[in-house]
């Protein structure tokens, strides 16, 4: 039963793990940031805008956002082979889709903005942490943006909706209806730029999950804003 489920880390259902955000973590980069949800730690660095090479990839109508999501080999229990995989290729693209809607990318024809994301410690919701770090890094790089984006996952653990799934809920839990993982990304004004879902859920409960995510994203947004302000001191 839903009421019986207790989160293994003692959190309330709508409680996110402790978030940390810091801007300016890679000196060489034009913008950079770290974002963490509990034990999940992502760093992101922005290089650009710069001329796109090779030239035939230049787009005269708008700039190109190029994201690269990468998990370091020792970020997980079983070492993962370094280098791109099908999974990381997909997450990279989804990250571009999540971020580009808030960028004033039309101001940079023929240019490219590179965003490199590395997950250095993984404990579920890595793509969300990566997107949050990347949004901060883009802002830190001074790239004109309409807003920030804030990302988090909502889970359905058996029948219970929870916010910010952790590793146990994401990959160990397997009772009742199992675990459903729904990563969302919202703009600061509540529009969805990214959404994925794996598992088993009814439409009604999905609508509930979406509302939870929207509320949770506001908390992420506050942490991001605070980090940006601190970087100015």
């Amino acid at each position, binding site marked *: 039963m839903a009421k019986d489920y207790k989160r293994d880390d003692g959190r309330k259902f709508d409680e996110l793990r402790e978030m940390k955000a810091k801007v300016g973590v890679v000196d060489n980069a034009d913008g950079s940031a770290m974002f963490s949800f509990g034990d999940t730690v992502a760093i992101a660095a922005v290089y650009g805008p710069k001329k796109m090479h090779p030239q035939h990839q230049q787009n005269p109508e708008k700039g190109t956002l190029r994201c690269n999501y990468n998990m370091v080999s020792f970020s997980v229990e079983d070492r993962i082979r370094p280098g791109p995989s099908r*999974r990381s290729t997909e997450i990279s693209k989804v990250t571009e889709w999540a971020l*580009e809607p808030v960028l004033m990318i039309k101001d940079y024809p023929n240019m490219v903005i590179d965003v490199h994301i590395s997950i250095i410690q993984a404990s579920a919701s890595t793509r969300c942490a990566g997107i949050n770090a990347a949004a901060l890094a883009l802002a830190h790089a001074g790239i004109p943006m309409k807003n920030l984006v804030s990302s988090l996952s909502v889970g359905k653990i058996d029948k219970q909706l929870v916010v910010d799934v952790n590793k146990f809920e994401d990959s160990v839990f397997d009772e009742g209806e199992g675990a459903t993982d729904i990563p969302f990304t919202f*703009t600061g004004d509540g529009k969805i*730029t990214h*959404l*994925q*879902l794996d*598992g088993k859920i009814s439409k009604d409960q999905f609508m509930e999950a979406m509302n939870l995510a929207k509320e949770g994203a506001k908390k992420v947004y506050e942490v991001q804003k605070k980090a940006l302000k601190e970087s100015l001191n």
Partner: protein
Amino acid sequence: MKTTKITGERIKQYLEEGKRFDGRKLDEFRDITIETGVSNQAEGSVRVKLGKTEVIVGIKMNVGTPYPDSPNKGNMMVTAELLPLSSKRFEYGPPRFPAIELGRLTDRFIRESNFIDFEKLCIKEGEKVWTVFIDVYSINHDGNLLDAAGIGAVAALMIAKMPEYDEKEEKVLFGKFTKTNIPLKKGLIIPTTIYMVGKNIIVDPTLEEEDVSGGRVTIGATESGVINSMQKGGLDTLSPEEMENILDLSEKVRKQVSSALGKVK
């Protein structure tokens, strides 16, 4: 060549009036045809057409070792190739993002629904299990390869026959098919992708319509409406209300796909 701006504007203008170039309604699929038996070497194979869009999907099986975290379950692998023969937009070379995404979305659509009864694909726990390979190839690209691939995967699984396995020799006797189908759970699963074009949402776009689309949501669900997989693609943003409309449209059009799948034998 990509659809021109002027055609794109006209498509959007038509949709505002509830019309499409080919006379379909916004929530109407093209004719869905599913033929079986593309290759007699495959455990199961189908050809799916959505109007002029065409894909072939084949199933091959083999015996391998299970993953350590699921010692009593069979495995599945889905790959998709966008063949250069199917469109001048596709080139030879290692798979790029669209092919990778097509494979991964089809994979999650099947896997997350538990359509295949993986536990029944275990031969000896911890040692030997069946792996199901589902391979998708585009034959003619005229939009909505995502749904074509999903429909093809389900249809191919429905008709595939297990090859014979010689326990003594530990060898799969390919070409000697048993009468046993791949163990599937009851009920159909249905892929539907909803495309956003301007302010309208449509299903089963032609290539021209897909070019003009600013975003899409791919939804895998059961006949009874349980959602198992979902992914938003593209740059258009969505309000929660718009997202609800997308789910409603998906629910509404699922019948069109399931009635085509229901005829597969």
